[in-house]
């Protein structure tokens, strides 16, 4: 099974679908949609097909592909899949088809929409699998382009501005990161992330960077950090996010929050932490505060929104910040944290939270899309009422997604957040205590959302008529909520995939 380029297949199948659509301009709209969906589903299919041969017990890369590519820069076409990548590939495989189904009725140039969407999906997968910075950065940057056009051309009234802000913020981060890696190559002569991690582990990388002298070694760390922090986004680099998520068409919002925000978090785990253990530890005190800022202020900002999309956008900042809170709590701790299990719980929770948030936030955006589609585009928290009596199935499934998002025990969100808090309490009790405020506020705004929209007498956009879910909508929400229940009861099926990696990480803590 290892001889076959499975990883290349995962990355390039969506792109092949995009190419096919581009080459078939005369294709019927319906056929085009189905074609796009099939290629989008390919990720999940190949990802699941790899599961049986995925070595559950090993921490390293279960699948790798490594071919010489650019001799002058010692760049290899290097892909690798370990537990972390696998979780995110599966997440992409789940979110992307759902997002396509959410924008199923897109009437403005649907072919071009699907081409861009498949390009975006392939780029995200490339980010999760590439192990050479050059290759990784191609995917990282290329993902911006389809995202930019998807927001700009299919978004709401303020989409142009939101898309511009989105791309400029992210490019600013990328420019800093590129500068950092130029320095890394200048001193080490390699861009291979796995090799650099080895160099960093024994201190060689830090020693080589120190040659630059003065403030510059810190600047290199800062550059790479900024590139990732903008993408996540980590507070206070988040200001592009609410507009971008709110203006994007529903399917794109789902992908942005479900998958693209994970690209940044993934970068923290795959690049920043392994390459800069020392500087990250030194900065962790401050970074913990930033992550806490995202957790608490994100939740409070969401509380103040009446536009539901903006509310979920801010809540995404809050939820993604938990992942980083866990990471920074681990890196901030000095010595002996691996033993008591705090670090293992925090890291395990962080990875699980990436997956959980991807599913539940995407589901929430989908539900808002359902509301929009039945009310002529309205999505104000106070513009609906009594939807539950008109559409009980929708109310039930949306409620499940919401409870998953606010961390109700029995649903998946709880396990991830519980593990994070369990770990962070052991490592940095004050941060965990302050973070609880975020949990509380999240419950308040999500319940307010539920109450205003679904309860009470029929009102607003739902006063006269509100259809319950169609077959297509059920096809998205039923599997998503089923997965939330399943992982809430049996989180082990996902944790098992990456647990060896967590053990490996905690064994190598200082």
């Amino acid at each position, binding site marked *: 099974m290892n001889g076959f380029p499975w990883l290349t297949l995962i990355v390039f199948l969506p792109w092949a679908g995009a190419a096919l659509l581009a080459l078939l301009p005369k294709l019927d709209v319906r056929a085009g949609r189905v074609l796009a969906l099939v290629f989008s589903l390919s990720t999940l299919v190949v990802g699941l097909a790899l599961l049986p041969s995925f070595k559950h017990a090993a921490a390293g890369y279960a699948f790798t592909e490594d071919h010489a*590519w*650019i*001799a*002058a*820069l010692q760049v290899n076409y290097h892909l690798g899949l370990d537990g972390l990548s696998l979780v995110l590939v599966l997440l992409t495989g789940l979110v992307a088809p759902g997002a396509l189904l959410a924008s199923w009725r897109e009437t403005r140039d649907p072919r071009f929409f699907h081409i861009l969407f498949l390009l975006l999906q392939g780029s995200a997968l490339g980010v999760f699998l590439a192990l050479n910075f*050059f290759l990784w*950065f*191609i995917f*990282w*940057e*290329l993902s911006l*382009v389809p995202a*930019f056009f998807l927001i*700009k*051309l299919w978004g709401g009234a303020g989409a*142009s501005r939101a898309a*511009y802000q989105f*791309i*400029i913020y992210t*490019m*600013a981060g990328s*420019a*800093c990161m*590129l*500068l950092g*890696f*130029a*320095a890394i*190559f*200048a*001193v080490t002569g390699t861009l291979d992330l796995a090799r650099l991690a080895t160099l960093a582990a024994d201190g060689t990388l830090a020693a080589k960077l120190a040659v*630059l002298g003065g403030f*510059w070694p810190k*600047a290199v760390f800062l*550059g790479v950090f900024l590139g990732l922090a903008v993408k996540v986004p980590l507070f206070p680099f988040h200001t592009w996010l609410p507009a971008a998520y709110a203006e994007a068409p529903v399917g794109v919002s789902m992908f942005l929050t479900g998958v693209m925000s994970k690209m940044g978090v993934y970068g923290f785990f795959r690049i920043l932490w392994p390459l800069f253990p020392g500087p990250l530890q030194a900065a962790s005190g401050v970074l913990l505060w930033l992550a806490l800022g995202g957790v608490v202020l994100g939740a409070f900002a969401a509380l103040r929104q009446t536009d539901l999309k903006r509310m979920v956008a801010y809540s995404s900042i809050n939820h993604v910040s938990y992942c980083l809170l866990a990471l920074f709590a681990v890196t901030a701790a000095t010595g002996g944290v691996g033993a008591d299990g705090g670090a293992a719980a925090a890291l395990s929770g962080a990875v699980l939270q990436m997956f959980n948030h991807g599913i539940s936030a995407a589901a929430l955006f989908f539900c808002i899309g359902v509301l929009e589609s039945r009310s002529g585009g309205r999505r104000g928290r106070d513009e609906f009422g009594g939807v539950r009596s008109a559409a009980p199935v929708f109310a039930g499934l949306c409620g499940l997604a919401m409870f998953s998002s606010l961390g109700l025990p029995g649903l998946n969100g709880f396990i991830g957040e519980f593990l994070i808090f369990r770990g962070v309490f052991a490592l940095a009790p004050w941060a965990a205590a302050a973070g609880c405020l975020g949990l509380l506020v999240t419950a308040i705004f999500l319940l307010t959302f539920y109450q205003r929209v679904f309860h009470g007498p029929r009102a607003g956009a739902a006063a006269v008529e509100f259809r319950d879910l169609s077959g297509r909508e059920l096809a998205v929400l039923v599997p998503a909520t089923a997965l939330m229940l399943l992982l809430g009861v049996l989180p082990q099926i996902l944790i098992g995939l990456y647990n060896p990696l967590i053990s490996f990480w905690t064994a190598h803590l200082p």
Partner: protein
Amino acid sequence: MSLLPWTIYLSFGGAVLALGAGARSAAAARWIALLTAAAGWGLVLVAAVGFAPAAGLQTVADGAWIPSLGVRYHLAADGISLTLLTLTGLAATAGVLFSWNVEERTGEFFAFYLTLIGGVYGVFLSADALLFFVFYEIAIVPKYFLIANWGSTNREYGAMKLVLYSFAGSALVLAGLLWAYVAAGSHSFDLPDLAAAAMHFSGSEQVKMFALVFLGFAVLAGLFPFHTWAPTGHVAAPTAASMLLAGVVMKLGAYGCLRVALPLFPAGLAFWQPVIAWLAVAGIVYGGLVALVQDDFKFVIGYSSVSHMGFVLLGLAAANARALSGAVLQMFSHGVIAGLLFAVVGRMVYDRMHTRRLDELHARPLYRLLPFAAGTFVFAGLASMGMPGFSGFPAELTILIGVWQTSPAWAAVAALGVLVAAAFTVRVMQLAFFGRGGEGTAPPSSTSLPPITLAEKLGAVLLLGATVVIGLKPDLLLNWITPALQSPFFEAVLKGGGQ
């Protein structure tokens, strides 16, 4: 390899033929120009296939010319020349395709055009300083006529400014070269000979000679603050001339710096290095910021060239093997991308919309009216902002890596230029092509724009293909460039400049 001199003769011959044929039939002149340009490019590619990358120049033609002065007709090539010859052939061919609609005095237009191309081939092949200079001047003169006769906005002003700057630069170069020639004992203008003799020049002599020669060439490469000819010249020029001006002629200046100023006067470089580097960095950032606020589409591209050439000059200033190879790669990359951008602005958009004002373009949804132009510009714009997967990325990355080795501060400020480039490219893309001019409200004339011609599509595909191929496989060029930089010719530069 011995085919390479024929690129020069072929271009000059084609110029004469086009002039003759143009009197009777414009179509004949066009086809002659296209065949000449394509044949020249073909010659370069055939030579490239048989090229064995090696350190040092490989002579392709050598003969006495003015023996009393020690001037020889010495043509030679290495991987650096070959890279730029490839660029010239490509840009020349694409330029003809984008000039297919020149109706006014077509024969003369292409005669000047091919003379320019011949001069450029000559510069990239010359291994004798005086011969180099002669070809350099041959390339400048046709520019004037192309702009003054076939140009647009402010064409007399633009043409005159360009020529005055170019000649002022040439005068400095000539003065510096003569000084070096006399100081070396007046035996030979041959570049390797001069370089060998120059090793014995005193440091202070080198500092002055370098200043003359480098500055003279750098004017044509758009070194800040001597860049002001570039935007006005680019804007005034007809499309094909803008493409060549930004794509190839600015490279002549950079190539002169690399081939003549650096190897001859390494001590001069060591002295002036910080000044040049900071001017280059200033050009990168300033050019980008000015591009960010232009309201004329073509000026945006004109200033972006200043910004991108700043990366070339920064690479030259950093003067280590990595930075220099990045600079040559960036010369190629920018040549292709700038050509493409000017083609979209000047040919695809301006010739149809008859305006370049961004606010007027924004009033119509151009991406619906001219989807091919919009698509081409999006790809060219991505390449121009250094998006990975296109040639600008490996070039700028290589330069940044090299510059880090010399001075982190230059690299840090230059990286700001990458961001500014993204900002102005996305801005102009939005304004020019993605206007929200409502679908129903567009004036009826907008629905009847002439469609994009086959020649334009072909030209765009050639240039886009080149930037993608080099973006994904920069080795194709770096495998030529890197060995060339290991020649003894560059040894002193790398030792003196690179620290």
